[in-house]
């Protein structure tokens, strides 16, 4: 009780420096937790985002580019493959489902993807989850109709019945508007996947859009595949990638996305270094804050000692005070973390359509606050030693 009273009163006496130091710790703690959480959670979520497919077949090129283009609807397509290639892989006994897609158009930056109705009828984008409609119906393949992802629809303010002219290219250029008029006939229910950011249209419509290369009418951008067994994936990998030289077979999708994170592994190490530096700065700020006030505290500490407090008691009080500042900062850090997390996850959602699950346990949520408290206590040791050494008699009164 005595120790807590001393710490409480000291914190109140130095309320401003306590507040400033706790705020800097809160920022550091919140930032660290956000960085770690987003890093691990995004890696986990992105590698699990397969849209329900095991593999992607596309033009010869980078597997990662192929996956980013076909599954995440990011990046440019590495090229097209012939309709015959699609027919061939579709008939392959190892393939359970083959869904062709065609890209190359947008509406004000929102990507238009041509596909077949089977995507919505047959494919589970997550286990036991098929695409459902929030409004309207799915498009008919021979009509200029569109089904819009939930996020794209809400951002564009589109409803069933809205009409639009697609623009050519993946990047928006108002000089390249197509003549065709499409009608929105359905809005997809949210899936928390990249599909939410897509304007889905019939495959043939994209292939034969006015102004497109006539050759595109018999080509697709990629084929999304569900395989009957994992061994089928290795077999097709051998056939297309090692023995063939015309097409690229990207398998397994999750592992290929994982390669992206492996490539930016250096970024993790930079983050770690920044984290350690932030931690050191946090401990330093506690040290500087308490140390700077030690001259003002000398008399109080000498009085406590004169009243019978042991040296170790005043040492412990200063270290506990530093730890308490760390605890305040760590607690406030959760508020910073909450705000940052909402902002960052929203940015990720806007950019990729992937929604990070927030209600997920991660050890950093305990380790980071504990580390902040420990580092703060460590920062309190230097002023605590100073308190320990205060000469009581000389500090209390002039000798008479």
């Amino acid at each position: 009780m005595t120790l807590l009273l001393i710490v409480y009163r000291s914190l109140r006496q130095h309320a401003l420096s306590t507040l400033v130091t706790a705020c800097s710790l809160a920022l550091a703690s919140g930032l660290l937790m956000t960085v770690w959480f987003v890093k691990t959670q995004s890696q986990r979520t992105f590698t699990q985002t397969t849209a329900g497919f095991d593999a992607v077949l596309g033009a010869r090129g980078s597997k990662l580019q192929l996956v980013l283009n076909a599954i995440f609807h990011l990046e440019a397509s590495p090229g097209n493959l012939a309709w015959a290639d699609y027919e061939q892989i579709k008939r392959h006994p190892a393939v359970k489902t083959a869904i062709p897609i065609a890209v190359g158009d947008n509406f004000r930056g929102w990507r238009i993807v041509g596909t077949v109705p089977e995507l919505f009828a047959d494919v589970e984008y997550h286990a036991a989850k098929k695409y459902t409609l929030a409004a309207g119906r799915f498009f008919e393949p021979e009509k200029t109709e569109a089904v819009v992802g939930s996020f794209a629809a809400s951002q564009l303010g589109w409803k069933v019945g809205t009409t639009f002219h697609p623009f050519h290219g993946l990047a928006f250029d108002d000089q390249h508007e197509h003549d065709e008029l499409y009608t929105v006939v359905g809005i997809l229910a949210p899936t928390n996947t990249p599909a939410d950011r897509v304007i889905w249209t019939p495959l043939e419509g994209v292939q034969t859009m006015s102004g497109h290369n006539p050759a595109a009418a018999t080509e697709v951008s990629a084929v999304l595949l569900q395989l009957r067994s994992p061994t089928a994936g290795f077999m097709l990998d051998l056939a297309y990638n090692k023995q063939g030289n015309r097409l690229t077979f990207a398998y397994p999708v999750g592992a290929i996305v994982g390669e992206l994170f492996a490539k930016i592994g250096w970024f993790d190490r930079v983050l770690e270094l920044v984290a350690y530096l932030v931690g050191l700065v946090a401990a330093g700020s506690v040290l500087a804050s308490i140390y700077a006030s030690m001259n003002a505290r000398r008399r109080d500490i000498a009085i406590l000692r004169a009243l019978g407090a042991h040296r170790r008691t005043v040492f412990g009080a200063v270290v506990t005070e530093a730890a308490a500042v760390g605890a305040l900062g760590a607690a406030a850090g959760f508020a910073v973390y909450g705000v940052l997390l909402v902002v960052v996850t929203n940015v990720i959602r806007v950019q990729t359509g992937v929604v990070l699950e927030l209600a997920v346990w991660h050890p950093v949520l305990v380790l980071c606050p504990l580390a902040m408290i420990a580092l703060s206590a460590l920062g309190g040791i230097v002023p605590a030693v100073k308190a320990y050494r205060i000469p009581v008699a000389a500090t209390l009164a002039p000798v008479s």
Partner: protein
Amino acid sequence: MLAIAGLAKSYPSPSGGRTMIVEVSAFALAAGEQLALRGESGSGKTTFLHLIAGLLDADAGRIELGGVDMAALSEPKRDRLRAEKLGYIFQTFNLLQGYTVLENVLLGMSFGPGADRAHARAVLERVGMGGHLRHFPSQLSTGQQQRVAVARALANRPTLVLADEPTGNLDRRNAAESLALIRETCRESGAALLLVSHDEQALAQFERVREFSEINRLNQGAAS
């Protein structure tokens, strides 16, 4: 109750040697006794009290309080003994500014026998500060601050109260009242009182007054 023998204390001097400040061959104070020591500034009075309180280490000698040689104790044990057996009233009161009146008294008790809120309130009532429990020292007059300092010194039921120029910062009326209060409360609790001062008005209230120079051999030439 208090028995001192062969006590010596020196400080490093600017010339590199050491300057002797206190050299007391023998001094004693009985239980419940009240004694005032008269001494000029710089005569070593405060150092003498600091040595008795265990706030300073002696170069040599014995300081027995209730039969326990404080000089031979480890610092933690000396701290404990000070908290349990001694009350100290400072010239500048030395109240903790960030703590309320009640907390100042309770904190002093907590290092000794333990914080007893009811007793702390009773002691503060006794010194006339019962209505100011939640006040901070800066909200009190100097006379009131001195009363709180007295309450804090007596709250642990000490056997010895040391008072170092306790009226030095008070006006004449407050000084007389404060001194009377210190003497009364010590008498009521059975604590011995050793006061050092150069204030003749304060010293005049004591039945027993000794020259500090009679005790401290180093002052004997100067005091006479």
